[in-house]
C-alpha cells in the first residue's frame, strides 16, 4: 500500500502500525512524535494505530533549539 509520509509517497507491502512504520524507516522512538492528518497520535496508541492509504503521516523529531 502507498502511504504519504512527511510529504513523500512510500510504498509498503502491507498496512503497518505506527510502531512498525518507525521500525521500517529505521527511526528510534525517542524524541519522536507522529501526527496523522494533523492529529497528534499519543505514543501509547502507536502499536494499535494503522494509517490507511489516503492518510498523511508526519513524523517529527526533537532538535537543538533555544
Amino acid at each position: 500500500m502507498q502511504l504519504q509520509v512527511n510529504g513523500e509517497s512510500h510504498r509498503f507491502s502491507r498496512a503497518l502500525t505506527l510502531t512498525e512504520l518507525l521500525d521500517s524507516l529505521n527511526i528510534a522512538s525517542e524524541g519522536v512524535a507522529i501526527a496523522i492528518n494533523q492529529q497528534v497520535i499519543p505514543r501509547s496508541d502507536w502499536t494499535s494505530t494503522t494509517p490507511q492509504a489516503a492518510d498523511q503521516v508526519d513524523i517529527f523529531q526533537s532538535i537543538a533549539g533555544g
Partner: protein
Amino acid sequence: MDKLTIAKREFSSRLFAGTGKFASSDLMCAALAASETELVTLSLRRMDLKGGRDNLVQPLKRLGVNLLPNTSGARTAKEAVFAAELSREALETDWIKLEIHPDPRYLMPDPIETLSAAEQLVKNGFVVMPYVHADPVLCKRLEEVGCQCVMPLGAPIGSNKGLASRTFLEIIIEQAAVPVIVDAGIGAPSDAALAMELGADAVLVNTAMAVSSDPVAMAGAFRIAVEAGRTAYRAGLAPVSREANSTSSLEGFLETLE
C-alpha cells in the same frame, strides 16, 4: 544559592540553557555540564527521512537535565498548540516553552497569539512557560490565565544586545506573582548577573554560550555570573545616590596640621 520552584519542580540552578548553535553534540553536552544547568530547551521539526538519525535526546538524558520543548516555528496560536501537543508526545513532558515569532528578521513574539495559545494550553494541562516581549501588562495577563512563569525578553533572540528592556523587566519583576525568567538577548555574563541583581528568578541563555570560541569556559562564566547576581540580590544591593558618600570620616585628620 536559594532554590527556584516552578510548577512544584525544584531547581538548584537559576541558569537555563538552549541547545542550539553548538558546533557539535559533544561540545553542547560539555558546555551544558559546565553551566550546571538543570533545564534545557529543544525544538521540534518534521524529520528529513533521507537524513541521518541523530538523537539529541539521548545525550541530554544522560546529562540528567530537564527537557523543555519549545514551539519555535509556530506562527499562530493554532500551530503552537499543535507543536505543544506533538512535543508532549515526543519528550513525554507537560512542560512547554511557548514561543510564537512569525517575523524572521527580529523574531519578536506575537503577544496576541501567545496569550490565546497560553490559555488553551493551560486548559489542556500543560505547564506553560511563555516567551514574550517585556510587556508588564501582557505578563500579568499570562499569569492570570495560568502560566507557571513568564519569560520576558532582554533583547531580540541571538542579538546578544543585553537587557535592552531593562526598565520594563524591573516593572515585571516587581509585579509578578510567578517566577520571571529573562530569556533572549543575554550576550555576556554581566547581562545575566544584572538580570539576577534586578530580581529575576532565572535566566535562559543560548547563543552567547554556543557561539563563544570556548563554549565550555563561557558556560562556566555564566554559571558564576548567575550565582553572583542572585547572591547579591538576596544580600541587598547598596542604594544608588547622586552625590558622593565618603567611606571614612572627613574630619579629625587634616585639622591637626593647621
